[in-house]
């Protein structure tokens, strides 16, 4: 039985893979079927998965085993229920309280962390002696890092019209930005090709057994 199910599952995967790929030719019922099954299945899967991996161990099990010791958990539970009241138009306003608490705590946590990691540490990382290394490539890299950072930031300085000599760093900044966008595009292409490789590997290896 388990063998049948694994073969059935394999053929189902193959069917859905081809159904999704068929969109590359043109939109068709197979693609629509696969897309809608995927959306429905994902929603149902996540609902069940999150209930069993978050709600059950972190709330229900704890309350059932030791209610007095975990009584504080009733606060997040109540906030969660308040959030769900959003479903009904009449009680929608109740959900504003948990949303406000969520936004407030997230802002409080992230403000400190982002200031330290994304601002102060990043500024410190740019304040380096470019000639500290003996390797010419590292020295060149450090110089480019400093020039690129200053020119890139200067490009977004709009308080004064950039013309004449003051426009030079701005133009240099655009070049640095364009090169970074190009690198991002290259990485994105690599990621998308990787996804295709993954699917083709499944078809050629698990289904057709052409490759090992």
């Amino acid at each position, binding site marked *: 039985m388990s063998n049948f199910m694994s073969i059935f599952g394999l053929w189902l995967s193959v069917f859905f893979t081809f159904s999704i790929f068929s969109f590359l030719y043109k939109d068709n019922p197979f693609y629509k079927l696969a897309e809608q099954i995927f959306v429905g299945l994902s929603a149902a899967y996540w609902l069940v998965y999150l209930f069993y991996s978050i709600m059950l161990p972190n709330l229900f099990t704890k309350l059932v085993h030791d209610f007095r010791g975990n009584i504080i958990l009733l606060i997040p539970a109540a906030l969660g229920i308040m959030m769900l009241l959003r479903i009904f138009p009449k009680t929608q306003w109740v959900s504003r309280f948990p949303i406000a608490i969520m936004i407030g705590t997230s802002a409080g946590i992230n403000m400190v962390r982002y200031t*330290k990691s994304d601002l102060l540490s990043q500024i410190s990382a740019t304040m380096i002696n470019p000639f500290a290394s003996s390797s010419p490539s590292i020295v060149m890299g450090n110089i480019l890092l400093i020039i690129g950072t200053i020119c890139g930031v200067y490009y977004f300085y709009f308080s004064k019209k950039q013309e004449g000599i003051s426009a030079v760093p701005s133009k240099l900044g655009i070049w640095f930005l364009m090169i970074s966008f190009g690198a991002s595009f290259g990485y994105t292409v690599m990621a998308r090709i990787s996804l295709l490789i993954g699917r083709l590997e499944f078809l*050629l290896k698990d289904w057709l057994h052409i490759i090992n």
Partner: protein
Amino acid sequence: MSAVSSSQVERRIVFLLLLIAVALPLIFPLGWKTEVSNYSKLAWNLIQSAPDSSVAIFSFDYDPSSMTELQPMAEAMLDHAFSRNHRVLVMALWPQGMQMAEQAFSKILAKYPDKRYGIDYAYMGYKVAGIVAIQSMGKNMAEVFPADLSGTKYQDIPMLHDVKTLKDIAYINSLSTGVPGIKEWVMAARDVYQTPVTGGTTAVSAPGLIPYVNSQQQLFGLLGGLKAASEYESLIDVIGPATVKMDSQSVAHILILFLIAVGNIKALRARKRGHNE
């Protein structure tokens, strides 16, 4: 109408060419070598230089959608950690991360049959709340993980006897595909508790994380995408899944470069024709 259909035909030809470019090297491997980048070398150095019997955290912060890129990294880095006799605490900030971890472990443990659960590795499971969970680990690990996946109490797991907080961890390796992931580990573990952090991510996410590999050592190297996974495999002298797939990746990139050139020439010619008319 004819212009639209001609562009549609062109698109289909491009898709077909790409399919062939990716499929053929999978069937007939070319064995092209990839050069190891500094980012991969830095990540390798961190694991290589950690002392024998160090406790490391491997956080599986991804799901099956990014398996193609991240699973080879996870396997290669795990292989490296076990070869250095490190003890690995396995956890996940993504719900399906533990399934990815178990797959990687089942493959690598076949190579290290002497590794024992509880002494060399432990599955601590999925933790909700991302950055808040990491912050709490910095204060008290046992509070965040009262028990492992099988229900054994934290205090009863031999490899974790001396691990009280994140400061007792030699390094953290986060394999991440989004939020929460590497960035949260950098913010809450490295920048607060100074625990070294390295990791791997999908190629799409790599440009956003590379700035953390800097003179402040917020990140000790970074593996970005399939290429970096193959680089790591070559650093540990393994011909793994990423190395095999890199042939397809390289051929596809050559084809895309060629198609970009052809597209630009066509656009230039069309613009020239427009000017003449």
